[in-house]
């Protein structure tokens, strides 16, 4: 039984570190609140959806920026989409880079855009690993018979 407690505590610590380091914001908390017995996998579902969406958008963006004449309108639309998705799950850092990205888009600054794309990719992979770790820990905890802290 001690294992469960320990795992619980670890999960908690991990979650709070994610918040502290700014990977996630309050929106993620709200997402968690939306998850209940009728929809037990809600958070995972949404986050997975986000991953798919983000990867698709990142590919599109890479392609668009590689072209010689960059279609900034389309790039901006993609970044807007990505920003919306990231803000919906509370991926704060990704969202913030998206904002900078859009600014560069407006200025038609190719260098800035490329730099932002790199940043986004980096942030995205970071948050992805973090969230995956989080889900793994939760799964383990659930398997061990514990539950996440209810509030």
């Amino acid at each position, binding site marked *: *039984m*001690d294992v*469960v*407690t320990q795992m619980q*505590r670890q999960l*908690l610590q991990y979650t709070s570190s994610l918040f502290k380091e700014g990977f996630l914001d309050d*929106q993620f908390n*709200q*997402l968690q609140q*939306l*998850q*209940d*017995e*009728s*929809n037990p996998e*809600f958070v995972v*579902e*949404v986050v997975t*959806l*986000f991953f798919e*969406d983000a990867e698709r958008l990142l590919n599109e963006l890479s392609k668009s920026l590689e072209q010689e004449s960059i279609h900034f309108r389309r790039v901006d*639309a993609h970044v*807007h*989409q990505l920003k*919306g*998705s990231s*803000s*919906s*799950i509370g991926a704060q850092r990704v*969202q*913030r880079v998206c*904002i*900078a990205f859009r*600014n560069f888009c407006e200025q038609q600054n190719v260098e800035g855009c490329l730099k932002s794309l790199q940043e986004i990719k980096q942030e995205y992979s970071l948050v992805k690993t973090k969230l995956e770790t989080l889900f793994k820990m939760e799964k383990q905890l659930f398997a061990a018979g514990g*539950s996440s*802290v*209810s*509030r």
Partner: protein
Amino acid sequence: MWVKWWWEKISGNGSMKVKSGCVRRVFYSWIVFCTVGGLYGFWHMSLNACEQRKETLISMCDERARMVQDQFNVSMNHIQAMSILIKTFHHNMNPSSIDQTTFSRYTERTAFERPLTSGVAYAVRVLHSEREQFERQQGWTIKNMDTLHPSPVQDEYAPVIFAQDTISHVISLDVLSGKEDRENVLRARESGKGVLTAPFRLLKTNRLGVILTFAVYKRSLPSNATPDQRIQATDGYLGGVFDVESLVEKLLQQLASEQAVIVNVYDTTNNTHPIIMYGSNVSGDSFSYVSTLNFGDPLRKHEMHCRFKRRPPWPWLAFNTCVGGFVICVLLGYIFYATWNRVVKAEEDRDEMTELKKQAEAADIAKSQFLATVSHEIRTPMNGVLGMLHMLMDTDLDVTQQEYVRTAQGSGKALVSLINEVLDQAKIEAGKLELEASLFDLRALLDDVLSLFSEKSQAKGIELAVYVSDKVPEVLIGDPGRFRQIITNLMGNSIKFTEKGHIYVTIHVVEEVVHSIEIDKELGMEDSSNRVSLSGFPVADSRRSWEGFRAFSQVGPLGSFSSDADLINLIVSVEDTGEGIPLEAQSRIFTPFMQVGPSVSRRHGGTGIGLSISKCLVGLMNGEIGFVSVPKIGSTFTFTALFTNACNNHHQHQSNPPSSEFQGMRALLIDPRPVRAKVCRYHMQRLGIRIKVVSDLSQGLSTITEEGNQIINMVLIEQQVWDRDSCMSSGFVDSTSRVHHGVPPKLFILVNSNACLGESIGNPRVIIKPLRASMLAASLQRAMGVTCRNGEVPATSLSLGHLLGGRKILIVDDNGVNRTVAAGALKKYGADVVCVSSGKEAISKLKPPHDFDACFMDIQMPEMDGFEATKKIREMERCARSNKREGFVDKLSKWDVPILAMTADVIQATHEECVRRGMDGYVSKPFEAEQLYREVSRFFHS
């Protein structure tokens, strides 16, 4: 008469608006009138007095005159009688039986009969031829009266033969020799009547007197005898001397009265030279009266003149009366005048006041309108400011800048909430706020409010609890939004001012509370201060907060106000252990914009308008609000509100327990504090769980092990108990896990805040307060592994759930993640959600008549944005309506779906903009429960 005239003059002017000048004129003329009246009265009265005085004088004078005359006549009659005596006994008898001696004795003795005569004498008629014989016979010679010598030869003589002793010196004197006497005698014998001489000085007494002379005849003469016959028949003359002065004096003495009268008697035979017979020339009143005296001698005339000795007195009576009357009349006039002035003044004042009141009311209305307008107008740009701030947050900012923006945003939000409050206040003042009447679940509403505050209370480590009495019906009819506003307000205040302890909301039916007071009184437990409160901190005595309530004073001893069974009077109290309200501020706590002090508003923010609004709202719910507060201990606010019981007509409406899967389970609560245990029991019972309370762990253990046949499914342990003794705790865990029969009970620890979580407390699960049925159910489900039946949303009895439960809602968003999140949020509240990803799809789904109850639409979408889609949908609705107009009376909602904009971009999301574009409102994209509730509740009435 004049009053009538005056009144007519006044009231004749119509609208009682006589100017004071006119009234003053009337007053002055009244004074003049009074003066004239007074003078006239005085003149009249003094004249009267004068007349009366004259009459008095006349009557007095006449009286005196008559008496003098009477007395005189008496004497005269007697003398006449004597003349007959002499005739009989002197002349008709021969020899005469009367001589001087006899005569004088007789007259002496009968002198009292003639009080006015000083003497009587008798003279006989002697012709010259008889002189010698007579002289011889008498023995003396006839003497002349003046010279006292023997009389010279005359034709006839009239010597006195008898005389009273007082005048015996006149014997032998010839009365014909005296001029006066002669004339008198001659007249007397010619007329045969008593004749008077003119007054003259009497010989001896030197007083004024008259002599009365009667003739004595030889034989009886006929009354019409000629003077010659009479002279022939004359025998002698009887004369009496009257002392007029003493006569009158005696009389006046008899009649002496307080009003001294001066009396003069005159002989007025000679008109030009009246001879005074009595009286002096003492000066007296100018007015005199003359009475004639008749002494029986027709040739002689006598008069009596009377005057008052004193001058007429100043007519004080008349004067006083008149002055008094004048003064009274003037005073009376003045009273009228003053009264009238007062009335006029009062009326003027009243008119002025009315005018001022009108102005004040107009100003008040203007103020409210101004507030309403301005508040409304401020909200629009504020949304812009907030939106821009939000966007600014999204830009690349350093930490300090972000801090600034966050502060600005916080202030902006505070400002918007303040404006909303002011708007509410203005609406209340303008009387425009009306309560709606809709069904609502009070318990769910309170759970909802509790979740709102849970974060704050957990952060502060305050215990937050709600208890609703069993007597309160499941479903009530009233205005849940406003009720919620009051409670949120009170709890918000409490949480703001409380740093430690608890906030405890209780809801009872008024009858119940009254009854409990009665019981307490009977048991002598009126002092409730020593009861242990929820968190163990001392609290203010809540009873004092409702001391003045009408509802309580009206109720009889057993609370018999079941006049209307459908009406439920709830009493809600919010108790905290905060810093309390300073005594000096308590009186103005319900005044708008009044805060305890400037430092408080600086520290805690807020407008101080909340309580005022709450009071108004409570008033609208036919309730009362009161509070009791002890500084450093805490405050308790209590209010009553009247609702309609919905359970009677909507029997068992939505009243299934939130999670019936727990039905019949048993729980054990280990909690030494009864109040806290009561709250827990309340929530567990709502889930259908039967609960038993014990006060410590060992008791709990024995309960679990002893009650073999009754399975305890779960044990709830208060953190306080758990932390007290860790050895005991771990022992308890071991023992419970080894309970031999069936499944060992699950253990739960009830804690107040996250802070305590880190400590190692064994394996039990932790439930963080505030307890709510939904949250409790979720925790229990997770632990007990109870599966929910047929995917029904368990335990979400939030009021949003009531609003959205079973509604079919379309979500339109191109972003899959956003769509999923929004759908998840709405599903959580029980809505039936369909998602589409573009405006076109939305149009195809939203063809009237509508299947959907509402549509949440993203504004920014590729191809067709939200506004355009809405425009298309509205066009379709218009067409459909015009086609179906004839004979089709359908629910309006079928033809008019509410569309809410869903956006993160607050700039576009002003309410006005959305309405202009045909939408019904907006919600910001990460859903906020409050905002969602507010918007949705405008369309859906549960």
